[in-house]
């Protein structure tokens, strides 16, 4: 069907652009591979958990940076978590931002930390947006009766 074909093409273009721009990396592909008949909603579930977790982490980060006396170890811990989850999902830019953020934590550079917190937040919301769009496209394809093309 045309709609399916169109949707699929849209999907492929979009996801390729995401890969090109570095929003997502190969890990996302791996996640898609894990989705099978026994686990049809795997990617959605993982991504939702990722969003939930990340919101919480970002809040924690913001509050801990705003403390009178900043506990950089704690901040580092949060960033580490965030890095872990973003790399598990394949959110490459978020992960990279986290890596740089950690450096500032090690140096106990408060200014750098707040800057990078904003950056990480930014990247997160960006990728969240993209992922939501992507998943919506997938839904649409499925609803239209097609199958989601797998990118290798």
């Amino acid at each position, binding site marked *: 069907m045309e709609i399916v074909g169109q949707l699929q093409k849209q999907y492929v273009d979009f996801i390729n652009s995401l890969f090109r721009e570095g929003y997502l990396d190969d*890990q996302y592909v791996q996640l898609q*591979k*894990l989705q*099978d008949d026994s686990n049809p909603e795997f990617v959605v579930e993982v991504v939702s958990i990722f969003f939930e*977790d990340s919101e919480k982490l970002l809040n924690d980060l913001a509050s801990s940076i705003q403390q009178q006396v900043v506990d950089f170890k704690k901040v580092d811990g949060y960033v580490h978590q965030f890095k*872990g*989850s973003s790399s598990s999902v394949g959110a490459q830019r978020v992960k990279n931002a986290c890596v740089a953020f950690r450096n500032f934590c090690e140096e106990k550079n408060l200014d750098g930390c707040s800057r990078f917190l904003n950056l990480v937040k930014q990247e997160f919301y960006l990728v969240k947006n993209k992922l939501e769009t992507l998943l919506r496209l997938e839904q649409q394809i499925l609803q239209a009766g097609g199958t989601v093309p797998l990118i290798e």
Partner: protein
Amino acid sequence: MEACNCIEPQWPADELLMKYQYISDFFIALAYFSIPLELIYFVKKSAVFPYRWVLVQFGAFIVLCGATHLINLWTFTTHSRTVAVVMTTAKILTAVVSCATALMLVHIIPDLLSVKTRELFLKNKAAELDREMGLIRTQEETGRHVRMLTHEIRSTLDRHTILKTTLVELGRTLSLEECALWMPTRTGLELQLSYTLHHQNPVGFTVPIQLPMINQVFSTNRAVKISPSSPVARLRPSGKYMPGEVVAVRVPLLHLSNFQINDWPELSTKRYALMVLMLPSDSARQWHVHELELVEVVADQVAVALSHAAILEESMRARDLLMQQNVALDLARREAETAVRARNDFLAVMNHEMRTPMHAIIALSSLLQETELTPEQRLMVETILKSSNLLAALINDVLDLSKLEDGSLQLDMGTFNLHALFREALNLIKPIASVKKLSITLSLSSDLPEYAIGDEKRLMQVLLNVVGNAVKFSKEGSISISAFVAKSEYLRDPRAPEFFPIPSDNHFYLRIQVKDTGLGINPQDIPKLFTKFAQSQPLTTKNSSGGGLGLAICKRFVNLMEGQIWIESEGLGKGSTAIFIVKLGFPGHSNESRLPFVPKVPGNHMPTNFSGLKVVVMDDNSVGRMVTKGLLMHLGCDVLAVGSADECVRVVTPEHKVVFLDASVPGADTYEVAVRLHEKFSKRLDRPFIVALTGNTDRMVKENCSRVGMDGVVLKPISVDKMRSVLSELLEHGFLVESQ
């Protein structure tokens, strides 16, 4: 002045009398006038005279008296009333003044007298002070002399100079006629004249030491006056008249051993020298106390200085000796080094040069064996081959031994089949043994592990050598080889009490006993067996090569394997038993900290279905946890995902085959879990595999993981294929290959 009753002039008929009176009065007046003048003159000259007022009074009194007498001159003839009045006034004045003076004198004369006594007292005092000053001065001079003497004496460390200086300075200070030092001889029975002031080289007078006078001097540390006629004092031809007084003092000769650390040097040295000092003869000088004191002090100082000199001499001698020894040692060391170098060079050359022709001989002889030969020729070739093999073995032995001695030999550790080793050795020896009609039996204990870790080649060498010797030296009978795992009681060799091996989980001690019924060995020769090239006795068998390096090398190898080797024998003709113990490792217990490397299994042999495989995943990151769980579920596993270390340890059961621990937690939780899991399953054989998942490529992580007993480390991100290969390797090999 009765004649001066001048109110009524009387004109005695005696004019001579009058004339004399007249003259006397005149002179009296003169004197009276001149005395004050003199007084004034002299008092003016002397600056100090406290009683000026008295003088004035006195002067006035005298002047008036003089005036009276002068005026009296006019009263001898008729005189006018004026003269009488003047006379009267003068007399009255005189009376007044003289009375005043008399009264004054009453006060003054005692004073003057006391002045005199004070003067006398002061003079006495001054004389006394003078005397004391004299004493102090002499004392101070004595002290100065002593200091100077001491300085002179101590300024040198040469014994002769010290003594010479002492005598010279003493002689000078005290102006002695003669000064001598008598030293005890080696025997200690006599005193010998060693130094004198005036003779340069005194002839060796000796005096026995046991004279009472000498004992008296030696018994006190004070200077003692002795008689000039005593033997020690008779140094010069007797003086013309009275020889001067002589004093003797002892000089202790101190030794190093006298200086204890805590006490003062005890003067129980028993060795004294005698210093004799003689005052000049024909002088009336006597020994003063301060001079005696000076002599005593000097004697003490001399003792100390002498001992210093002696110590210095000793230390100089010792130092010279040490230097000589050092030089000799250095030379010896260099020679030894040269020798070692030469030997190494020689061996290196030998190695190559000798092996090459050897190989040629052996190779060609074996080739020759393959060709058509007559029986005689065959025999000859076999002999050649056997001999050259022996020679080759000997060369190798020599080279091995030198390497062993250098300490540069290292064992090639590897896993090998222990049982097979024995069987092979047996096979090699059996032909020779059967030729000699010897029976060989091999018994391996049941607890002997099949595989072991050690240097297979060298163990074989030792075994062959020992068994070979047993065969060589047995003409008949049997040889039995037995091997078992040594328990502690059997490990101790009474001959080597320091050898205290302790078997452990990782290694065991293998004990091999080779008993033969051969020639036996004289127990006295046993220690020599293991020394190089020592031939114990002339052997009559044809194949005798009893001397050689075989046993020496065996001993070295066995020592390298942390074991012991020894031979027991009850005597000639009673056979002998060779026993050696070596340390071998149990296979499967690796001491290495690295995870072992095994070639990677290619992918297409992997099982793709792990359905029902029960696994546990621990990750405190919910996203990561879900991803890993999904991954494993995709591969068909039955996954239990937990988020904390405690939960993990709790839920793991023996049914689970693998536990995946996410090690990206910046903490030691992951390692702790591994340790606790080990503890939980320590008694069981069905512990699940523990694998760490980490994004950290640090070597530390790998080492820490292997330290806590993990079976593998996997680097994130993990693809499906990677997880598949990980699982299959775990299940197939029991440990993970490279954690890529």
